[in-house]
């Protein structure tokens, strides 16, 4: 089964109103080439589930988001994501604001075909105040109350990885795969962009096969996108683009997302990369020190 397709073909599978999970974490290994393709599309009314960074900010600013399921949205070195803030402060989006671990549990429940996972996380906080659809249940084994964190099944997940083959075997060579395995498993349709397309025999080495975090049956589409995580990082290949993120954040105060998109987005990824200095500039970005 050859799962390769263009970013445009992959994004064309997404429909208005769908629930879209986005892998990565804050400014780290976000499937930005796929996010940009959504920006170029006329998709709307998406429910986005993300450990959010600029993916969330851009999609909110461009009016693609009806509802956001999140625990945080941040660019780390710029703690407050400017366009996400604008969206919240203007009341433009619905939200399901939950704890980071609850989000993980919701993805796992979906991956494991369960309606919910019990947890005490959320009790006593405004997570429950503002999410009355999250039910509190009794346990048959004790006298405590427990949060029944509902499954978060995804119509589509977008993930960026280091390498993949045409059948959807995906390697994350960086130090952390974040929750990407659960995004892949929780989704009906998992679209993966990769910095590098490799032959299948690349994985015929147990050390590399160890860096494959879900079986290929959980991958639906492979999009070759070198540098596709930019401006987020794809460690160990390249770091996040501090200067670009600063320009992005500044645009929120002056010009807005339309000015940002006008300047950078382009008609396709090739044009985007020319607008941000070229692929070589991206892959030369220094890794962050934490």
């Amino acid at each position, binding site marked *: *089964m050859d799962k390769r397709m263009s970013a445009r073909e992959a994004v064309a599978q997404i429909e208005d109103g769908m629930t879209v999970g986005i892998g990565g974490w804050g400014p780290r290994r976000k499937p930005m080439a796929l996010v940009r393709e959504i920006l170029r599309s006329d998709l709307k009314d998406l429910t986005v589930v993300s450990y959010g960074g600029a993916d969330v900010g851009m999609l909110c600013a461009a009016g693609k988001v009806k509802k956001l399921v999140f625990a945080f949205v941040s660019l780390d070195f710029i703690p407050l994501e400017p366009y996400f803030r604008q969206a919240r402060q203007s009341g433009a989006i619905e939200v399901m604001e939950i704890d980071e671990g609850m989000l993980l549990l919701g993805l796992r429940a979906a*991956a*494991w*075909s*369960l309606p919910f996972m019990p947890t005490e996380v959320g009790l006593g906080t405004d997570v429950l105040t503002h999410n009355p659809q999250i039910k509190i249940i009794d346990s048959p084994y004790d006298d405590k109350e427990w949060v029944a964190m509902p499954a978060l099944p995804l119509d589509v997940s977008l993930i960026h990885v280091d390498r993949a083959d045409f*059948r959807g*075997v995906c390697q994350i060579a960086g130090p952390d795969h974040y929750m990407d395995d659960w995004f892949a*498993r929780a989704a009906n349709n998992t679209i993966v962009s990769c910095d590098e397309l490799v032959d*299948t*025999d690349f*994985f*015929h*080495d*147990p050390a590399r*096969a*160890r860096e*494959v975090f*879900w*079986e*290929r*049956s*959980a991958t639906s589409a492979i999009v070759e996108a070198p540098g596709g995580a930019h401006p987020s990082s794809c460690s160990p290949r390249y770091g996040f683009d501090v200067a670009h993120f600063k320009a992005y954040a500044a645009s929120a105060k002056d010009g807005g997302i339309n000015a940002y998109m006008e300047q950078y987005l382009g008609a396709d990824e090739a044009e985007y990369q020319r607008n941000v200095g070229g692929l070589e500039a991206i892959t030369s970005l220094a890794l962050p020190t934490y």
Partner: protein
Amino acid sequence: MSNAATEYTLAELCIVASAEAFRYDGEVLATGIGVIPRLAASLAMKTFNPDLMMTDSESFLLSEPNPLGERPADFQPATETWMGFSRIFDNVWSGKRHAMLGPTQIDRFGQSNTSALGGTYAQPKVMMLGARGFPGNSISHPNSFFVPGHNDRVFLAGECDYVSSVGYNPARLPKGHALDDIDIRRVITDLCVMDFGGPEHQLRLLSLHPGVTAEQVQENTGFALCIGDSVPTTPAPTVEQLAIIAALDPHNQRASQIAGNPPGKRS
């Protein structure tokens, strides 16, 4: 792939018939426990369903099935994905798997037993493996059975002494589930190929191995089978299939899987 062989063993016939169970599965984990089911899944992956996934029976998914038994010192398995036992359950619960297993008892509901025979539950007469992963497999994904010795002790008259896996038993149907949610695919034995496609999920004869009669199958089954007017003969392996099986099983482990290693065409 249409060059029917004239000489083949019953084991080889069963491998080919069992491989058919995986033909239309698409991209799922094919788990064949035991020599014949494993060769069946491997044959399917090597021929008509290359999208199948398979483990090395240890901790990796393979792009190509490993041959059985000792391999040359320089053999390099075609690993593609780490798949330790804990991750197997992520796959099981996703439903993207088809297992072919050989339980000790199979009843008219398709319920099976891997745990205990006779006596009481507190003190069974014969203790076997335990429930294993059968409860989870049977409620989560499609399953097939391979039975090397078709008789009425395996296909027993009553209900299994211990029900390890769910079947089409209305009395045990969980709330909110439908019998049609349960997905038992093929039952391959040394006599025939069956499925649960009869009326009300009755076990149904699909094909008879060469030289076997429907009466013989019914006599060796403890409950009534659904038998059509004309039951076809299980197709013979092709020459190409036999060659692939021989390459997958270079030490001929398949020869010791059915008592006496009889030929596929019985007189």
